[in-house]
């Protein structure tokens, strides 16, 4: 009868370990920023404008595009971005 009172947990029972964001630089001067297009409609227009404005501020830009917005970027692409950029902006999910 005692067992009848005990419910088993249907969830993953996992709480992720809290991490903090990576350390931010003092300024973006002279750094390279990667713009990652998630391949959703209109995102490229938005990123073009961001690129213009970032370039005007003297920031070097590299553009990347993932094959589809419905899945995480392929591991090789993430590796490439991380090895070439000092910061990353991903857009545009709607």
């Amino acid at each position, binding site marked *: 009868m005692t067992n009848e009172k*005990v*419910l*088993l947990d249907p*969830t993953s029972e996992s709480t992720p370990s809290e991490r903090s964001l990576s350390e931010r630089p003092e300024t973006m001067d002279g750094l390279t920023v990667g713009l990652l297009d998630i391949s959703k409609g209109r995102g490229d227009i938005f990123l073009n404008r961001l690129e213009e404005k970032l370039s005007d501020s003297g920031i070097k830009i590299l553009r990347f595009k993932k094959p589809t*917005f419905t899945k995480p970027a392929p591991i090789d692409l993430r590796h490439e971005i991380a090895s070439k950029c000092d910061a990353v902006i991903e857009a545009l999910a709607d």
Partner: protein
Amino acid sequence: MFERSWTDGLPVVPPTTERVRKMLEGTTRPADEIVVSVPPNLIECTVEKIAINAVMAGCRPEFLPVVIAALETICTEEFNMHGVLATTMSVGPIFVVNGPITLDIGMNSGINVLGHGNRANSTIGRAVQLVVHNVGGGGPGGVDRSTLGHMGKQGFCFSENEFSSPWPSLAESRGYDSAQNVITAFTGEGPRLVMDQKSRKPDSLIRTLAEHLISTVSSRVVVGMDAMLVLSPEHAARFHEAGWTKERFLEEITEMMMIDTDNIIEGSNGIEEGLPTSMKGIRLPKFRPDGLLLVQAGGTAGLFSAIIGGWLNGPPGSEPTSKEILL
């Protein structure tokens, strides 16, 4: 349990130790075996966790192998369950079961096949959705962004009436043999009726079906989304009796669903939605090759069939995915 957000909104069966133990008797696989990583959080999931959720959904132990296989189909790169959850389109996983197990566990492929009333049909799909919700962390308002959703997201699973049809089953068309127990997952919206009570000849009925299928999702969407056609026994008989094979049916209907892009480019007929103007002047098929999945099911009386519209197909979206059910 509802307050702990363990449920899908309906009451669930409390997963007591005893009930879960009995559920686990439905499979030969060990309770601690990790079978899948469940999206969206990609959490490793054991047979026991699946059994707990299967109890809650109301499954009988003999349904458990089907639930496990269903999860094996959707927790894959090609099915892309994360994308299926995250899309604002109103779609969810839909399961078709083929093979002798459908008789063994009493699945319904007849009257009200896409509706309620059969325990296996009603609870297998529900158990899968509970696992995605509870283990994977994907629920409505969270990662699930569906604008409208549909009632089938409560759990949508049925079997094909393959035993009284001369045509190969869905599983056979996908490369399995009829003795195998197979589950196929398809990402789709709610079913929609196609009425044709007058056509006595296959050449007429197939035109009705084509005409309706062309409007699947949007008549301006071509190639990029699949559909499932659930052909009822009376409609199917029109083709069987005239000696048509499944291959002939699919070939002819594909030809009838070739679309002149001029009619569906942006701005045509005063509608801004449409293909880009650069695609003017060509003919495209409504569905890609194999993009129309044919399933035979339903009650023996009624000259109706049903269309289940899909979502993005191919690598950016979700591929129909089949797995053999291991007992």
